[in-house]
């Protein structure tokens, strides 16, 4: 569904490569998380997928990228937008309607969604984002997190074949962040939507995605199933990635000779780890 082959890119006026020889594939129905420190190239990689690099961002591009069978170099971002729904990191730059309702409607109309389907899609997306009660509010009067939810509703309403989201939960409270990921999981599992998501909240991300890609200095340094990527604690720390606290706990217990199993992926697994670590003595 997404094929990126040996892509390098540098922005005009910035001599440093934002991406260097990145090769990455995602099959239909994949749910891929991208992590890495600030400036690692995560947003640039999402822009390669939706074609904004190199069509809107000038610079030097090499390599091949194809999305949904289309070479991004030969398709305009508007054409690509029919299969790729994007959420940008800068939310304020993405919202352009003045009322919440219109923001969601506009995309649907543009997408050519049949009239009789529009209302149910709007309702679904607003409810999924937890903002049904804000439907008639002026966007300029919303709180930071509420605005982010509007942007998320606008793209989930579209149910595109591919979704690319750049830090979708930056300003969301902990439970809303989970709800967004639950919605993504539903779109992924029930509707086969291919999802690529950049996220700083790694513990949560790991619970939902099936694969992880780690960027560092414009390069893809690790890629694979979540558990196998998380094993590389040192490489991750090197890449400035915030490893989950329970992973740190597992490493510390190991140092003390108290545990020698796999790092846990979630709280129930961590609880099992603690039981193993003290069990002999109780």
């Amino acid at each position: 569904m997404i094929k990126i082959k040996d892509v390098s890119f540098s922005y005009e006026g910035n001599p440093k490569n934002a991406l260097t020889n990145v090769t990455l594939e995602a099959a239909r129905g994949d749910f891929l998380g991208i992590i890495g420190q600030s400036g690692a190239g995560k947003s640039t990689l999402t822009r390669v997928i939706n074609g904004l690099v190199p069509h809107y961002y000038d610079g030097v591009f090499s390599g091949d990228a194809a999305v949904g069978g289309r070479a991004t170099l030969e398709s305009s971002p508007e054409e690509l937008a029919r299969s790729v729904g994007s959420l940008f990191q800068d939310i304020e730059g993405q919202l352009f309607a003045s009322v919440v309702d219109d923001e969601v409607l506009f995309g649907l109309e543009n997408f050519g969604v049949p009239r009789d389907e529009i209302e149910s899609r709007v309702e679904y997306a607003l409810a999924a984002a937890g903002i049904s009660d804000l439907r008639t509010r002026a966007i300029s009067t919303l709180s930071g997190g509420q605005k982010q939810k509007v942007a998320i509703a606008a793209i989930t309403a579209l149910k595109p074949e591919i979704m690319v989201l750049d830090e979708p939960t930056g300003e969301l409270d902990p439970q809303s962040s989970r709800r967004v990921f639950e919605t993504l999981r539903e779109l992924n599992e029930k509707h086969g939507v291919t999802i690529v998501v950049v996220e700083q909240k790694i513990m949560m991300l790991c619970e939902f995605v099936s694969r992880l890609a780690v960027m560092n200095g414009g390069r893809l340094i690790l890629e694979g199933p979540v558990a196998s990527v998380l094993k590389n604690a040192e490489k991750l720390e090197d890449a400035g990635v915030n490893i989950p606290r329970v992973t740190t706990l597992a490493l510390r217990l190991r140092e003390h000779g108290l545990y020698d199993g796999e790092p846990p992926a979630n709280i129930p697994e961590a609880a099992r780890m603690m039981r193993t670590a003290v069990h002999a003595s109780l």
Partner: protein
Amino acid sequence: MLRFDGVSFGYMSGSAINDVSFYVAPGEFVALLGENGAGKSTLCRLCNGLLKPSSGRVKVGGQDTRQVKTSVLSRSVGFLFQNPDRQICRNTVSDEIMFGLENVVASPDERRRRRDEVLGLFALDGDIDPFGMSRGERQQVALASVLATKPKLLILDEPTTGLDYRECLSTMEIVSRLNADGTTVLMVSHDMEVTADFAKRAIVLSGGRLIGDGPVREIMKNRRLLDEASLLPAQIPALAMFLSELGELGKPDKIGELFSDAFTVDDMVELTERANRAPETRQ
């Protein structure tokens, strides 16, 4: 330092802060928690006089915010907006910091000294245009210009959003050093790990009402309160709670008891070691 006394405030869209009262003593580090739309940013704007209460009273350093000019308040209250782009308005980092100091420090020499100090502290290049920087870097520029004014009360509205892990830690260490030197800090955050690591007390808002106020360690283990405010505990307290709520057989057991007060990775490791030593000492 900061007192809210039965404070209410509403926008055209409706009530946003409802009969809120609390007191923050000088030198405290308080986290302000709550769901999206709970009223956190509104409460912050009430602290620095950008908004005035429609009823009740807000006092900063003993002064009623309705009776002092916002420009006077801003000499002792440093304010970081939720979105750094609301704040940054100059073409170089250096100018941005100097701009913030204009209203606060009279002597130009002192202004330059303070600017150089924060440029060093944040390892920033003064000649760069903030608009070409990544979001994380812009956030640090905005914070640097606030800190240069050496506020007595520092209000931070989501200071670590958009920062990566390292930037987040270095930023929080700077804030925490200032706090150790006496600056009072009120910080909005959705990051429960940062809250657990740095704040000592938490105030919890939900739908404009204050629904919780107490030590972070206690708030993080109050499942009902967290649920009501759409929050989740940080990982280690979450693990401790999980262990103490559900034993292996679905009811509380000894292991749960053992870890029930654990709050940090260190606590967990130490308690495990102690448990493993225990049988030997008993012999």
